[in-house]
């Protein structure tokens, strides 16, 4: 366990070292996710990120196009409000350290396609191209609606001690999918609210117990004088594996603080309502994130995966609290001075 945390620490340190030589202005990163990597705040922005809670690496790209002259009405502009994007994530179900080391691990890959529409209820531009501002403070409000369709492929090694010895270790192929509809609004560049509904085929691999052992195969020499022993390390999960269809309603609220100092910070509160059991399960959390002068951002979040104790069987609330760490950084520019 100590080795795992040491490797994690080394990885995070190397990420900081990788980008620390670039002293850049603060930039904002889309990192507002829960421990499962789920968020209703979909930032239409390219990034490369790591979520240590669910041991995933993620790459995302969004296509968008700024406004242009309206070919039909030359006095007006045509607001190009549609956008699309792709998101590819790889995860090591056995922990983040396995993602960066040799040995047997059980990788999973997911990919998503996004289709979206900006300025649904709050146009950023009027027809002549002037900014649309709101309130006495003359702040901008922008909103966007995103449809996400994705799939997931993962192979898990499972261990069941109740089965006959020869069948105790076996593989399980998981084929999941996700359809999500999310609406986001950003008020004055500082407050964002997101709501979403998604339906997904998921599994309970995060609830199973990781086990690790060595398996030996003994091959005797026909002459009986020599014995050859082959050994391999097996990482597996113990427990009752199952997959299920889950409906999730998500609500996220973010407040971004930009003091005069070099470091900005943000608070993120979120709630989830999951329908995958006989009773609905509530998940809630609170995150705190820092945005220093670099291309990297990170933070911690605490969450309860079963707020009202419907499925966990642990009456004590403090034992149903988890803590996570997330670190992400933006893709470096290609031949262009970064801001």
């Amino acid at each position: 366990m100590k080795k795992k945390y040491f490797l994690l620490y080394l990885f995070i340190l190397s990420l900081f070292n990788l980008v620390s030589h670039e002293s850049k202005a603060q930039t904002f990163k889309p990192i507002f996710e829960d421990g499962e990597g789920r968020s209703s705040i979909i930032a239409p922005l390219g990034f490369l990120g790591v979520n240590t809670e669910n041991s995933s690496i993620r790459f995302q790209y969004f296509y968008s196009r700024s406004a242009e002259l309206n070919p039909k009405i030359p006095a007006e502009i045509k607001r190009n409000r549609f956008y699309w994007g792709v998101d590819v994530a790889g995860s090591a179900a056995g922990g983040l350290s396995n993602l960066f080391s040799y040995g047997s691990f059980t990788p999973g890959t997911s990919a998503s396609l996004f289709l979206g529409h900006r300025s649904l209820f709050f146009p950023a531009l009027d027809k002549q191209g002037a900014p649309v501002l709101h309130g006495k403070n003359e702040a901008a409000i922008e909103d966007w609606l995103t449809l996400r369709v994705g799939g997931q492929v993962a192979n898990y090694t499972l261990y069941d001690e109740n089965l006959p010895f020869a069948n105790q270790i076996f593989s399980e192929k998981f084929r999941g999918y996700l359809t999500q509809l999310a609406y986001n609004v950003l008020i004055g560049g500082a407050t964002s609210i997101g709501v979403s509904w998604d339906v997904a085929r998921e599994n309970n691999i995060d609830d199973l117990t990781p086990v690790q052992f060595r398996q030996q195969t003994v091959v005797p020499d026909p002459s009986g004088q020599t014995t050859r022993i082959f050994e391999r390390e097996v990482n597996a999960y113990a427990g009752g594996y199952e997959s299920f269809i889950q409906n999730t309603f998500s609500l996220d609220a973010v407040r971004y603080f930009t003091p005069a100092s070099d470091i900005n910070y943000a608070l993120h509160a979120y709630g989830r309502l999951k329908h995958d059991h006989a009773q609905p399960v509530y998940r809630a959390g609170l995150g705190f994130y820092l945005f220093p002068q670099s291309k990297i951002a990170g933070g911690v979040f605490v969450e309860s995966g079963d707020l009202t104790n419907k499925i966990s069987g642990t009456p004590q609330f403090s034992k149903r609290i988890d803590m996570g760490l997330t670190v992400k950084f933006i893709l470096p520019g290609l031949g262009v001075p970064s801001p």
Partner: protein
Amino acid sequence: MAKTYKVQVELSTDATLQLFKLEGYPIALTRTLDNVYRLAISEFPIDGELDYYVHCTGWNKTTWSLKILVDDKDVTPEPIKGVIEKGYSAVRGAIKF
């Protein structure tokens, strides 16, 4: 009559570029893989100074940086920069070259 030039534009930002204008004309820039909006025009008429207008929206303190090449010559050796406040940044200016 205005002389025409080859113009290349690179606007680097994590924000959303809503509108970009050159010489008063709205010109659509497309975001590429590294969050840079790019465009190249082979024959663009410029009359005197090169007027530009940038309007971005997004999270506060997000910056944008504009780099323009005219006939392959960098006319913005120091990139033009802006920062988002109150959810937007709308900046107009002119470049001598």
